């Protein structure tokens, strides 16, 4: 168990008879952020404002006098087992009548009885499970996506059924050709095929026609143009053959072509939508409501309604929602997300705290200086959007190539038609149709997306979520890989690394006294001592914010910073020279020990860095931390280039400088301060437990706490690139061989259609090798 939250969830899962979760989950959920235990009961309060009927009405609808249906967006769902856990545990609550989770859309729909349960309890329950919950706002973009998905699924399904029908008739017709068939039955089969095919062309293939026409109107040639031409011409010609009772019919080719194209498009759409639906919103990390002083009372107000000048109460353990100046009380805020420092900064009245940082110690009152859109966090986000627009767009290049190819195909087809018109006008239409079908860039257009989709799926099953598939393409070409320090190469939390005993005392005794004292503290230093089993119990310990602890008993132990300890024990020697975070321990006026804490590197970090270096990549370390920890870590991991004390802007500039020098850069990071650089780098990773802002901006999300995934992703990306090259060579080679044959009239349209389909299938199968 990594934290109290896990323990709670585990006992909830086991107690509720849901052990299955552990068997069914395919990946691990991101670790919940550490929050002091004491803050747990206040969660319900945070959701109380959802009980307000006015707010509730925005995401619920009344089914009858007693029952309501609500829709909630969920964050942190990783696999199907999550949906099962949420559904089952919600159904166990009194008053919940029905609960359905859509994994693809991260959405929960439930029906509840308004008398038995309040919305705040549901929100609380979901939060206690470790997922994030937010009211679902029906945005038009989401509705459009949902409609697009349904339409294309319908078209695909109808085309599939139609293909079977027409295929049966086609087999009968071909068999009839060989065995001899009476003309009346042949006509019957032709007419029925025409009927079914017409329906498919008009219903299923409509999107090809409309897209081609829409782009043609603005003078653009897209892949859909030759597709629409081939389908349209083959259908019209076959229809004419049926009506005039002459020549060949190729209805089966038409529907097969339509179905395969729709299938490829649908698979592509699914991956695209899955990424679009994934809920990674930066705002989710900020509390939705804040306690504001109104008429001498604390009232929960939604974050959007807070104004500059309001006095807010910032509770311990909470993420701060606004930029504010402390007016009353003092505490320590953890700003690691901003600057990579894992030690909290002490703040007193008149100091400023920023949105997105965490209040570690005590409740304070503060006056808002920057509300909702004016926070430093929001500013960071805006600078990132600018950086993102400067990112090289690979997709556009593919579009340009495709449009040229399409023009070439059409010119070639027209030429074939013109030449054949002079040789044999009867054959002209069919020959040019063969050219059009055979040269259809279907395999060519599938070559890249099929490989990238397969690679993304394979990575997903290995605990890496791919957000932008184009990123795989750039990942295969990287020359530099940059790592952030805190939380990326290191664990992101302090651990005991050295104990220097000063008096007549041994190490285990020092640690058990320290562990006993630190039970009474919320400071991140205390976490380092949590794991120690043997501890001495202290009843009364005085805790001085940002300084140290002092036991109020006969021993009068004190533990804390140098100045704090020296106040009790004046003989305390200065701490050792190593660049560690030193905590002193004294008994009365006798110094006992210095305990050195540091952020330990992840166990696999060295292997990963070495693996990347052996593969010929330049590995560098960029950190916002300006202490000596950076160089020490770089030396330990054998990283040659290291930059410390870098502001987010500097990191961004550095990467852009590298890019100007011709480098292709991958960035691995986790914090808010990494988000801008993640968006500028050619491709980027966010490690498990990264801040939401970093997750939104990264191309790859690691689900598990294992850096080896970075290495694996890179290998997969390189494999994917090889497959893309193979696919392209095959598709182009096939076209180069087949187009002249078709132009010479040696390939009948049905063979062209089969050849085209086989070529596409081959490309897809080749891509699927990545899944193994």
């Amino acid at each position, binding site marked *: 168990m990594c934290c109290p939250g896990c323990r709670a969830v585990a006992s909830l899962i086991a107690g509720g*008879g849901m052990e*299955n979760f552990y068997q*069914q989950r395919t990946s691990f959920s991101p670790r919940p952020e550490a929050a002091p235990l004491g803050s747990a009961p206040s969660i319900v309060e945070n959701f109380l404002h959802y009980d307000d009927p006015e707010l509730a009405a925005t995401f619920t609808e009344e089914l009858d006098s007693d029952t309501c249906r609500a829709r909630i967006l969920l964050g942190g769902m990783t696999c199907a087992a999550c949906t099962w856990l949420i559904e089952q545990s919600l159904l166990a609550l009194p008053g919940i009548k029905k609960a359905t989770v859509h994994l*693809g859309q991260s959405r929960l729909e439930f029906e509840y009885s308004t008398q038995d349960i309040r919305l705040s309890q549901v929100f609380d329950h979901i939060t206690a499970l470790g997922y994030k919950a937010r009211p679902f706002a029906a945005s038009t973009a989401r509705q459009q996506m949902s409609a697009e998905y349904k339409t294309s699924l*319908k078209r695909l399904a109808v085309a599939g*059924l139609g293909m079977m*029908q027409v295929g049966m008739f086609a087999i009968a017709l071909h068999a009839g050709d060989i065995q001899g068939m009476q003309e009346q039955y042949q006509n019957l089969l032709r007419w029925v095929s025409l009927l079914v095919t017409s329906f498919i062309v008009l219903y299923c293939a409509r999107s090809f026609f409309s897209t081609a026409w829409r782009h043609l109107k603005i003078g653009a040639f897209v892949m859909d143009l030759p597709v629409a031409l081939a389908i349209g011409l083959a259908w019209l010609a076959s229809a004419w053959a049926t009506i005039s009772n002459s020549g060949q019919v190729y209805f089966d080719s038409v529907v097969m072509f339509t179905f395969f194209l729709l299938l490829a498009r649908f698979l592509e759409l*699914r991956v695209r939508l899955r990424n679009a639906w994934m809920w990674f919103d930066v705002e989710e990390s900020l509390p939705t409501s804040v306690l504001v002083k109104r008429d001498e009372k604390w009232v929960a107000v939604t974050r959007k309604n807070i104004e500059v000048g309001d006095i807010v109460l910032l509770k311990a353990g909470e993420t701060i929602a606004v930029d504010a100046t402390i007016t009353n009380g003092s505490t320590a805020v953890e700003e690691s997300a901003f600057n990579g420092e894992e030690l909290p900064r002490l703040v007193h009245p008149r100091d400023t705290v920023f949105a997105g940082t965490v209040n570690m110690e005590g409740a304070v009152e503060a006056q808002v200086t920057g509300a909702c859109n004016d926070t430093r966090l929001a500013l960071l986000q805006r600078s990132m959007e600018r950086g993102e627009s400067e990112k090289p767009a690979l997709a556009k290049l593919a579009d340009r190539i495709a449009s040229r190819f399409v023009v070439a195909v059409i010119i070639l087809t027209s030429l074939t038609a013109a030449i054949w018109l002079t040789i044999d006008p009867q054959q002209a239409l069919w020959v040019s149709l063969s050219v059009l079908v055979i040269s259809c860039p279907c395999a060519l257009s599938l070559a890249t997306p099929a490989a990238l989709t397969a690679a993304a799926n394979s990575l997903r099953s290995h605990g890496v979520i791919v957000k932008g598939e184009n990123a795989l393409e750039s990942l295969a070409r990287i020359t530099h890989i940059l790592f952030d320090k805190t939380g990326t190469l290191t664990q992101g939390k302090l651990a005991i690394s050295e104990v220097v005993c000063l008096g007549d005392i041994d190490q285990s005794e020092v640690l058990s006294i320290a562990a006993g004292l630190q039970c009474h503290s919320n400071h991140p230093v205390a976490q380092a001592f949590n794991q120690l089993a043997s501890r001495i119990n202290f009843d009364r310990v005085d805790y001085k914010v940002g300084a140290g602890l002092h036991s109020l008993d006969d021993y009068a132990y004190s533990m804390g910073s140098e100045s704090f300890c020296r106040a009790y024990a004046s003989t305390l020697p200065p701490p050792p020279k190593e660049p560690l975070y030193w905590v002193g321990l004294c008994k009365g006026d006798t110094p006992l020990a210095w305990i050195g804490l540091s952020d330990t590197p992840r166990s696999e970090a060295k292997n990963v860095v070495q693996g990347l270096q052996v593969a010929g990549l330049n590995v560098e370390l960029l950190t916002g931390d300006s202490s000596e920890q950076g160089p020490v870590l770089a030396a330990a991991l054998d990283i040659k280039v290291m930059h410390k004390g870098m502001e987010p802007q500097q990191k961004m500039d550095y990467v852009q400088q590298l890019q100007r020098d011709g480098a292709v850069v991958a960035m691995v990071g986790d914090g808010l301060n990494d988000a801008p650089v993640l968006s500028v780098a050619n491709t980027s990773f966010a490690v498990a437990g990264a801040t939401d802002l970093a997750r939104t901006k990264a191309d790859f999300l690691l689900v598990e706490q294992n850096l080896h995934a970075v290495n694996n992703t890179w290998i997969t990306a390189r494999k994917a690139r090889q497959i893309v090259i193979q696919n392209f060579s095959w598709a182009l080679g096939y076209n180069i061989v087949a187009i002249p044959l078709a132009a010479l009239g040696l390939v009948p349209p049905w063979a062209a259609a089969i050849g085209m389909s086989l070529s596409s299938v081959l490309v897809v199968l080749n891509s699927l090798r990545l899944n193994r």
Partner: protein
Amino acid sequence: MASLYLLIPIALVFCVIAIKMLLWAINSGQYDDLDKEAWRILADEETDRSEHKKKEPPTS
């Protein structure tokens, strides 16, 4: 062979019915989440609570 005149229309009617049902299923959202359904079959749907419900003796 003359039976084709009857059998083919019947086949088409069945096809239309199948398409109708499929469209209805898609429209009513049964295909919205293709990822979860693959797992649903593995989950023990019958938790204590739903068993209670089913075992409730019919009134009257």
